[in-house]
């Protein structure tokens, strides 16, 4: 690996290849049969709602990105000489580069999310139409559509990071890119999560519970908002979330590579290594994606899992060849392999707690016969237990990758970072499988609303079931990846602070550090509470609106009058976006406040506290929410009294509690801790010089 820049060019080629395949699949999806007029009409409601939300989201983000960009340009353009003298040097180029990197990160993430959403709202109706003919055709269409997001996401990320590195030659600039991506991810994920659960809860509580109409019934005024929510939460939101972790883990390792005590050539080599892992992951994902196929009569779930396993094996093979034929330390291979295996294992163990063939879901369903309180206690307890395997996995990956790296003479912390990059290197495949879920979910909704044959619904149900499993695996995967990423970012923060000439002393014997730890530990629960309260507040408004429509227009239930879908879509969008101000402040403002007031040691403690409670809460909420959801679905198959029984009523309560757990607060916490780590690393040199308590 003598000419490291060659690998950066190859990374750009890989990114372009990934984007080209994504665009090819996008246009291939558009060429498929969009179905009957009625199906297209229903799909157009979802498309219009999704576009309207994205427009509002991106407009708000554009303004925010501009404001933060200007702040970054000024802050990073004004370079203090020392804190004592107060003298400053104006280096506007530095500030501008950082601002452009920030905006670039947000734009690249936005483009990938936009493309993913566009294809999702086109693919849903086409999948429903294809299900008229065969399961395999519908599966191919929906999975290819999901692959558009997966490949666009990794493609845009690698192109953006590589170009920026080529232009500036600095890993710090890529940190700005990552901060931009994370800011967008936080708003997209939390906003999407609030949107989707607002609509879901209102549609369920009024439509299903009060009025008694089935799911996805076109008479429900909130049904379109519910389907739009699947796209904004699970396609745009999840895409932005993994984009953020993918970039953040890469940049953390680039920063660590740049700061390792090595020769100039080795600095550059180990800065570029994470980009090489990304490009190898892209090629593995490209092959893996094209091998995911279902023959008639086969189940889609195993095909998705097979794709993940093949991609993992291919990536391992590519990495092995890369390490064998270059002078890169073999520790890179073993650390990446550790992360990769851990990611896959954690993903599948998360599935244990949410799979209706396993004890946790069956037990929670059984105790639902004794009421909603027992259902909630049991589900919550299993959610707490579900933390154990993931935490052990993260701890094992941390220790193994650290010691493996040290064994081969590398920095242990660099090894931890590489394990995070290894885990996320197959994101192209993982996100493709994840984005497939909401597409088939929407397809099922469209089939219901458009009154398609019951065979179509049966096939859509089968596709949907595989999507739910993929979603559970991705959640476990993304939380674990975020955990390893922030450990690497934490180390990067320490490097940046020490590079500014300040000795970092993060010890629990220091009161400032202890204060920081407590403040940090408080942040994820507080963030969760704020986002969940937003859901309940907005859902309350939408419930009133749905009730009003049913009350004032009896023709809606009789099927003679079309509900005002647009009103519910608009309520959900406005509610979600206006609810983001406080959570956004927590993510960006609080670390800066702690840093500038209490200093870098306290900020280090703050990050540590936030990382630990963030990971714990993210795992608990995602898994408990998924468990409650599947316990309800298990009862709906006729077990323990089936739909309408007392057990079912209790399980519906549990599922409603779990909805904002698993789709709003839980998945947003990964992004929260990443944003807090990034903002701390980015502003670390300034905080190191200027803070109130010395």
């Amino acid at each position: 690996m003598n000419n490291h820049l060659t690998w950066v060019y190859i990374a750009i080629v890989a990114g372009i290849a990934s984007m080209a395949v994504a665009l090819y699949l996008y246009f291939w999806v558009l060429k498929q049969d969009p179905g009957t007029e009625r199906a297209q009409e229903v799909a157009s409601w979802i498309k219009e709602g999704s576009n309207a939300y994205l427009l509002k989201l991106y407009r708000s983000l554009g303004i925010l990105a501009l404001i933060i960009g200007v702040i970054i340009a000024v802050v990073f353009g004004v370079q203090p000489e020392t804190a004592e003298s107060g003298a400053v040097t104006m280096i506007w180029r530095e500030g501008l580069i950082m601002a452009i990197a920030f905006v670039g990160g947000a734009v690249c993430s936005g483009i990938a999310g936009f493309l993913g959403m566009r294809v999702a709202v086109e693919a849903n109706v086409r999948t429903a139409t294809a299900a008229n003919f065969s399961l395999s055709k519908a599966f191919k269409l929906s999975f290819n559509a999901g692959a558009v997001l997966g490949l666009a996401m990794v493609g845009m990320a690698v192109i953006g990071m590589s170009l920026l590195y080529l232009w500036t030659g600095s890993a710090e600039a890529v940190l700005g890119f990552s901060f931009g991506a994370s800011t967008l991810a936080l708003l997209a994920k939390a906003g999407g999560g609030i949107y989707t659960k607002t609509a879901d809860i209102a549609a369920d509580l009024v439509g299903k519970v009060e009025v008694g109409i089935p799911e996805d019934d076109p008479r429900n005024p909130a049904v379109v908002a519910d389907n739009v929510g699947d796209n904004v939460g699970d396609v745009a939101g999840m895409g932005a979330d993994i984009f953020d972790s993918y970039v953040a883990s890469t940049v953390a390792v680039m920063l660590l590579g740049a700061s390792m005590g090595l020769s100039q050539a080795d600095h550059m080599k180990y800065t570029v290594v994470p980009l090489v892992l990304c490009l190898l992951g892209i090629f593995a994902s490209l092959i893996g994606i094209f091998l995911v196929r279902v023959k008639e009569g086969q189940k889609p779930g195993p095909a998705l899992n097979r794709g993940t396993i093949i991609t993992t094996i291919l990536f391992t093979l590519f990495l092995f060849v890369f390490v064998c034929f270059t002078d890169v330390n073999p520790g890179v291979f073993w650390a990446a392999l550790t992360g990769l295996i851990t990611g896959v294992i954690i993903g599948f163990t998360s599935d244990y707690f949410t799979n209706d063939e396993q004890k946790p879901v069956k037990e929670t369903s059984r105790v639902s016969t004794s009421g909603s309180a027992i259902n909630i206690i049991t589900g919550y307890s299993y959610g707490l237990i579900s933390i154990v395997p993931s935490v052990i996995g993260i701890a094992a990956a941390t220790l193994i990758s650290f010691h493996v790296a040290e064994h081969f003479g590398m920095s242990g912390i660099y090894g931890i970072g590489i394990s995070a990059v290894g885990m996320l290197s197959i994101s192209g495949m993982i996100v493709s499988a994840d984005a497939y879920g909401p597409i088939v979910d929407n397809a099922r909704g469209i089939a219901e609303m458009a009154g398609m044959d019951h065979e179509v619904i049966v096939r859509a149900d089968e596709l949907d079931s595989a999507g739910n499993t993929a979603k559970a695996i991705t959640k476990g995967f993304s939380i674990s990846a975020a955990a390893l990423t922030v450990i690497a970012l934490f180390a990067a923060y320490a490097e940046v602070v020490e590079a500014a000439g300040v000795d970092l002393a993060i010890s629990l014997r220091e009161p400032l550090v202890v204060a920081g730890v407590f403040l940090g530990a408080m942040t994820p629960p507080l963030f969760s509470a704020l986002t969940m309260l937003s859901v309940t507040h907005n859902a309350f408004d939408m419930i009133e609106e749905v009730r009003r429509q049913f009350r004032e227009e009896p023709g809606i239930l009789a099927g003679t009058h079309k509900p005002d879908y647009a009103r519910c879509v608009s309520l959900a969008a406005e509610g979600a976006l206006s609810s983001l101000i406080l959570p956004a402040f927590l993510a960006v403002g609080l670390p800066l406040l702690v840093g500038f007031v209490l200093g870098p040691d306290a900020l280090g403690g703050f990050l540590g506290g936030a990382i630990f409670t963030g990971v714990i809460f993210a795992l608990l909420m995602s898994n408990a929410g998924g468990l409650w959801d599947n316990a309800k679905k298990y009862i709906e198959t006729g077990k323990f009294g089936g739909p309408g029984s007392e057990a079912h009523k209790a399980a519906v309560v549990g599922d409603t509690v779990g909805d904002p757990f698993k789709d709003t607060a839980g998945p947003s916490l990964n992004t929260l801790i990443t944003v807090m780590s990034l903002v701390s690393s980015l502003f670390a040199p300034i905080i190191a010089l200027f803070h109130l308590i010395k």
Partner: protein
Amino acid sequence: MAIHLYLSLMPEALIASMLSPEEFGTYYAVGSAKKSRGQAMFFEVDPNYRHPYFRTDEAYARCVPHEDGSLKSSVYISVYRVLEHVNLDALIRLYLTTMDGRTLELTPDDNIPNGTGQLHLYQELAPVTPLVVSRLGPTQFLDQIVRNPVSLVTVPSIVFTELQLGELAEDPEMGLIDHLPYTNHDHLRQCLTDVKTKFVSTKMVDRTHSPNVQYRTIKNGFFVGNIEQLRYFPMPTPEEIRKDNYRWFRSANM
């Protein structure tokens, strides 16, 4: 414009209407501007059926379109002791409407299930609505209610349906009960054990049971009988309903 005659079971009423059975079901279940709503079950009665107890022709005369041209939804002919005054041969079809207004049509069948040697759970729907368990099959159960000369409690006509008991039908003491959607499992098990082991053949489980029925719990169909005859309206299997009437299948949580 044709006028239909409907015998509603909840409440027991004879109604003239210009709406088709499906439209009537939707109207009856999801309400009108009056905001009344809920599950509905009704028979379509031969429109030419007359009985001196009912002022049917007078009601027909009132059953005309509204001034705006919309059809007259309902003219109540009677809401008291209706069933006993209807000849069961005049009952053409039975309609089951879900809470959100989807309607399933059931046609009569002569093959009345025997059901001997098992325990049964009957939900009476009209004129009274208790939930009872019995070791008698549907025909014997009807006999006991309408023809039993020694019983102090009889009714002239009755509509009832048999609900699923699963393993309890054979083994009330040990049979699995978890998958049954009924409340107070222990009491149900005890009542079934009593009718199996004691002298009584029928025992009331719940004297004020809601006449709303979870359609998926229906074992075989609906029975309507009086001293002269018993008529049976079988329920299609869930698979048949899913295939032929998917909307109703979903709406009824089958």
